């Protein structure tokens, strides 16, 4: 009996191999019914056990179980293997050209000037600043007078102005937001604001001049603000904006609304300071104008210069963008050629 069972196992396994070689899943079921089904050979063998002696029965029973387990395990493995092959063949037949582009969505990019403004905003918001805005059609008072440009003063020549009405003009800088902020906040301190916005000057448009451009203004007023704080703040800004190891340098300058006034240079971001065409071999690049708020400006804003002091700074957004992205013609920012603007799609910061 035992020999019969072992012969059965061998036969069944041999058949299974044949079935597997055919790679036909339907035949597996036939094999299962034939050998393992209720009316299959193994069941038949089991039924024949009734004729065995009580002593033989457990022994043979054990062998029957072993054979069943071996066949079932062989079946499972062979079936799985065959299934994988069959499925793979199916998938191959369904294969696509995966190198072909998908249904690519349109992707927009932030305008480079907006990107620069957002970066500057993020840095200063991180420093505890808020963002103020002001009108583009501005009163002469806020644009000039409150910024310590007396009427008919030659300093007004620095900023050729578009006029739209009596004492009404297109702001020539974002500085009037300083005046408006002081007027609104005085005598509260601290004041820590930046003011990005569009500005206008009566310039002919060329590669380096634009009648419309943008600035980011900054203003800090508090008790005991020092010029060294201005330097420290702008150094921190420069390191976030232009690189961890940046250095800054202040150079004397003039603005009617600050005293002392300075230009701030950073190490050339292209040559690191060794000198190149971008920095005209100086190793430094001017990035903004700044200074200590002029006492007249504080006074007109409602603050007492004997009690508080402050600093202010202003930078040209186009200039920063031209520097960062190597744009050589300022008009490109306003031409909005999609072939140029779409290059910014892949720029994360």
């Amino acid at each position, binding site marked *: 009996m035992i020999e019969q069972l072992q012969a059965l196992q061998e036969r069944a396994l041999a058949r299974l191999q044949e079935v597997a070689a055919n790679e036909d899943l339907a035949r597996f079921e036939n094999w299962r019914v034939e050998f393992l089904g209720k009316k299959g050979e193994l069941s038949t063998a089991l039924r024949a056990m009734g004729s065995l002696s009580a002593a033989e029965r457990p022994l043979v029973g054990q062998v029957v179980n072993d054979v069943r387990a071996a066949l079932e395990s062989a079946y499972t493995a062979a079936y799985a293997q065959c299934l994988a092959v069959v499925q793979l063949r199916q998938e191959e037949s369904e294969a696509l050209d995966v190198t072909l582009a998908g249904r690519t969505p349109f992707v*927009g990019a932030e305008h480079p000037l907006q990107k620069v403004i957002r970066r500057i905003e993020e840095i200063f918001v991180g420093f505890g600043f808020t963002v103020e805005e002001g009108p583009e059609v501005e009163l002469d008072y806020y644009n000039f007078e409150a910024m310590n440009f007396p009427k008919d003063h030659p300093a007004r020549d620095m900023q050729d102005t578009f006029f739209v009405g009596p004492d009404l003009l297109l702001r020539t800088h974002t500085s009037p937001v300083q005046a408006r902020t002081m007027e609104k906040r005085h005598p509260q301190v601290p004041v820590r604001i930046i003011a990005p916005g569009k500005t206008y000057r009566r*310039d002919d448009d060329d590669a380096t001049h634009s009648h419309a451009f943008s600035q980011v203004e900054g203003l800090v007023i508090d008790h005991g603000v020092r*010029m060294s704080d201005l330097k*420290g703040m702008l150094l921190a800004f420069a390191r976030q904006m232009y690189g961890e190891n940046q250095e800054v340098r202040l*150079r004397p300058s*003039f603005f009617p609304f600050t005293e002392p006034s300075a230009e701030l240079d950073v190490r050339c971001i292209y040559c690191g300071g060794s000198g190149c065409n971008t920095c005209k071999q100086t190793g430094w690049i001017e990035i903004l104008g700044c200074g200590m708020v002029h006492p007249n400006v504080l006074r007109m804003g409602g603050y007492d210069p004997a009690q508080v002091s402050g600093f202010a700074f202003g930078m040209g957004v186009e200039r920063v963008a031209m520097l960062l992205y190597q744009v050589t013609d300022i008009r490109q920012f*306003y031409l909005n050629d999609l072939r140029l603007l779409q290059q910014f799609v892949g720029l994360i910061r």
Partner: protein
Amino acid sequence: MKITWSWLGEYVDLSGLTPEQVAAGLTDAGIPVEWMEPFVTGVQGVVIGHVISAQPHPDADRLRVCEVDVGQEQHLTIVCGAPNVAALQKVPVAVVGSRLPGGPIGKSKLRGIVSEGMICSAGELGMPVRLMAKEQTDGILVLPDDAPIGKAIVEYLSFDDRVMELELTPNRSDCLSLRGVAYEVGAIFHRTVTMPQVTLQDVRANGPAVSLSAEIDTPHCSAYAAQAVTGLTIGVAPIWMQMRLLAVGVRPISNLVDITNYVMFEWGQPLHAFDYDTVSNGKLVVRQAFLGEQLTTLDGHERALTPEMTVIADAHHALGLAGVMGGANSEVTERTRTVAIESALFDPLQTRRTSRALQLRSEAGVRFEKGPDPAAVTSALARAVQLMCAYAGGEIASTPVMVGRDLREDAVQEREVTVSPARVAAFLGVAFTPDELHSVVQRLGFQAFDEGDIMRVRVPSRRFDIAIEEDMIEEFARLLGYDRIPATVMEGPLTPGKLTLRQSLRRELRQHLLAAGLQEVWTYALVSEQAAQKALIPSDHPLAHMGALQNPISEDRRLLRSTMLLPLLDVAQYNANRRMQDIRIFEIGTVFHPYRLPMDVQPAEMQVLAGVLTGHAYAPSAHGDARKLDFYDAKGMVEGLLQRTGIAGQVTWSRSQEPFLHAGRSVDISVGGIRIGLVGQLKSAVAKAYDLETVFYFELEMDALTALVKAELHVTELPRFPSVERDLALVAPRDMPVQTLLDAVWGHGGTELREVTVFDVYTGERIDSAHKSVALRLHFWHMERTLTDDEVARYMEQVLAAAATFGVSLRG
């Protein structure tokens, strides 16, 4: 402001310094040297020659064969084509082996005669010919008779002098003179400044004397000084003076005029010379012009004067515009023998307005506008008299005349500025020592007196930019070096940095549109006069009422945009003309709505989020499912924005009447009866005007959105009981807006109706042409229990009954 190295060296000790060092020092101190270069470059080996003879060339009518002595043993034979060459002239000679800006000079054969070099014109030498007299530039350059034979021309004409262009900030107009720059260089490099020692002199005993007097009859002149000089021979100024003037960009004219210009550059004080014989009775009056008075100025233009302008006049008529330009009637000519030299202080404002009104800009005007140093007025006059005596054969012919404020040098008040060293330290964040502060004061040529804890600094009148303590703080900082200021961390309370709701919303919506595949653009706020017309906006439409610039730079940039439509369509057109098909752009920009025209108050400035879409709905691919954008894509884009803002549910939509939009495919977006935006297809005529085909425009007012925006959210509990869905297939009149139907459904669907979706709208063969079929799915649920079929059936009956009143029935 241009200066030259040699000229500067007349007044300040430059020994041991190089021009490069001085340029760097000035730049670091806040007087940037924009560029520095030799007066004339490219000349080498050119020497002064003496023309011994000039004979006609035997074979060429226009050529002369010259024998020229250049100080060598042998005279040179030089063939010259210039008609003005003549024997006995001193001329620049480019000998063989020398070099001109145009290249090296060799022997050449001209019509059979070998020329051993070339006699040069000013142009060939690379001199600034546009500033030179025609006699000096036509033909060869003829040098003064006393020019030394054989001397290098580079040296004789100071070609190697270094010219520096200073970029002066408006506060440093003291440096509009060599004197000012000399003091600045002196302060930077601790050097002594020595100005020519001149004082006004009286007439020589028994010398020639004329009567000269002056009177000020206007508040716009604070002081007037003058002196007469006679015996003059009008000719050319010394060559060194001409070269210095040329180097700083001033046209040499005659010895007299050149001297006034030279002194103006030296002292910063503009001067004017009147032909004395044209001044009636030798009496000069400073007064305001009369109404209707005329004056022909030196440039030959007849000027209509107004009473706002100050003139110098005699008893009969105006002789010059104060501080702006002299009159032709009193001009110095070749025949002039006696002049009255004026040195005065005119009101800067007045001068500025006059030169603006007449559009006359001159070196003198620039200096008067900034206000010259009162202490230099008489020095400059004395210096001019001295030079006229030295270089024009003049002799003092009158007592110096001085009217108005006392201008004697010691009478001009010095300003006193009080400085607290403690405040300097607190203000800059660096503590300079008392010695350092004093050394700066001394270097500047100021004086300081210690008084307890403070310093009293006496500032000479030449530095009128220094008036308050902060001005002195800047002087300390810049002369001790801005590098001495450390970088410190600001003290004071922490402040939370944040964006306003409006700013945050702008960012959110921008990000939304970028992700939705729209490119952000930045356009100019100024548009052309024709812009509205191009977009078919009629002239009586509010959007056509745009504020105008009073002084536009071009007609293309004249009006303040009233709508983002105009600039965005320009961008679309620009890109369409460059074969871009899929143009999807947006901008958050400012539009200007004036209250009145012309504007007399600030207009309403509104921020608008606007976009233009044309081309495909999805980027075309190889997968054969390209589709052009349609109205519902554009509207969906806006609906996305409204969802993003959290106000989609509050919005009502109604047909738009905008003249530039397709009448049947455009919609106004309102909340609470107020329009906050619109979206629609552009009229085909508008699209065509911009070289576009089907194009959509949308805009939303940012302030309206900000006012409505949801900044907080409390979530609604989710239903715990199953919802019930019912579909309705309805037949509605074809032109009935689905919104009408939806309003009826929501109005009668009961409180448990939670959602209604339109999942199909059909018109076509399977339905008569007066109707359309609309398929709705209604979702009901109750928060506390399961709804029964009966309840839902009742709601559905109510809905159908309401719909029936609009002629809507169940589809059979």
